[in-house]
């Protein structure tokens, strides 16, 4: 079953799927980070999103903004490394952009994502092309907003663009973060932040399409 809007139910489903995906891919993310960073991205992201899943278990959220804010604050306090403030800022800006809305359609999610991605760029003082997570977020946002009003189609387009954006970081030279110390030696390696961003999009696409069906949102989707 596909869904046309995101309520707290679908957002929870997304974040729980993200925790599972990031944990399943933790070794791979850490390996990417070992090549050009400090070899902790997989364990950091797994720890952070597992903590988010725990916060979702413990909490009851009135609207998407409350849930997204809790997610951002949890990531800020548990991820560590640059990804903590970056992903934390992303979710806090998403929360701020949704206001008190009870659900997000494609247009509202697009606006919220635009605010979130701008937050990442501001926080990291980064621009596309510098071999960072922005190189996955930026094309994903463009594809999402260019895909029209159908939420599932737009998220699928965003997820595909995030994956391409991730792959496209390989030939780039890092100029931001610890990878920048490596300069030209960073070429040939995919950026770990772009890789975790692609996984977040994959989780969102699965939540919206109802794929897998191992989560709390079963039977609730589309309401």
């Amino acid at each position: 079953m596909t869904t046309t809007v995101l309520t707290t139910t679908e957002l929870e489903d997304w974040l729980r799927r993200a925790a599972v995906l990031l944990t399943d891919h933790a070794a791979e993310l850490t390996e990417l980070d070992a090549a050009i960073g400090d070899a902790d991205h997989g364990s950091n992201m797994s720890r952070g999103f597992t903590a988010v899943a725990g916060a979702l278990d413990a909490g009851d959220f009135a609207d998407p903004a409350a849930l997204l804010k809790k997610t951002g604050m949890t990531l800020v306090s548990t991820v560590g490394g640059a990804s903590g403030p970056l992903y934390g800022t992303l979710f806090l800006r998403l929360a701020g952009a949704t206001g008190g809305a009870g659900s997000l359609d494609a247009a509202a999610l697009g606006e919220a994502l635009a605010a979130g991605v701008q937050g990442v760029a501001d926080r990291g003082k980064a621009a596309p092309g510098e071999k960072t997570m922005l190189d996955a977020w930026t094309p994903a946002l463009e594809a999402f907003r260019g895909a029209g009003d159908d939420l599932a189609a737009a998220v699928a387009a965003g997820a595909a663009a995030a994956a391409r954006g991730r792959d496209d970081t390989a030939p780039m030279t890092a100029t931001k973060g610890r990878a920048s110390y490596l300069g030209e030696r960073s070429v040939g390696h995919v950026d770990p932040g772009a890789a975790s961003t692609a996984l977040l999009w994959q989780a969102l696409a699965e939540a919206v399409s109802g794929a897998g069906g191992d989560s709390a949102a079963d039977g609730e989707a589309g309401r």
Partner: protein
Amino acid sequence: MTGIVVVSHSAPLARAAVDLASQMLRGDGPEIAIAAGVADSSAPDGLAIGTDAAAIAAAIESAADDHGVLVLMDLGSAVMSAHLAVEMLDPELAGRVRLSAAPLVEGLVGAAVTASTGADLEDVAGQADLAAEAKRMQLES
């Protein structure tokens, strides 16, 4: 007194830096709060390497008085977390917070000694920057 916050990826590193700076102080020193590490239930001390913007915001609040707060940080993403922490603060308090470009140890010693004299935030921040410069001059002479 101007308060001081030490932001580090590592809690032992932050504590040791504060111990070192405290040896320079006589009598009452400034409030020095630590925000170091991130929560990790699987770690022996409950902390993993990293920085936590919410903990930094809380540390700033605990160290704040009328004079404001100088924040000293270690590597890269500590700066990002500190920026985010300032955004989380009450705007009135945020206006009395300065993030120092000084290296952590040199800046902390300079800031702590200066703050203990009752100096305001501008002076404390300025002395933290000078403390870093002093090392360069020492090497050049």
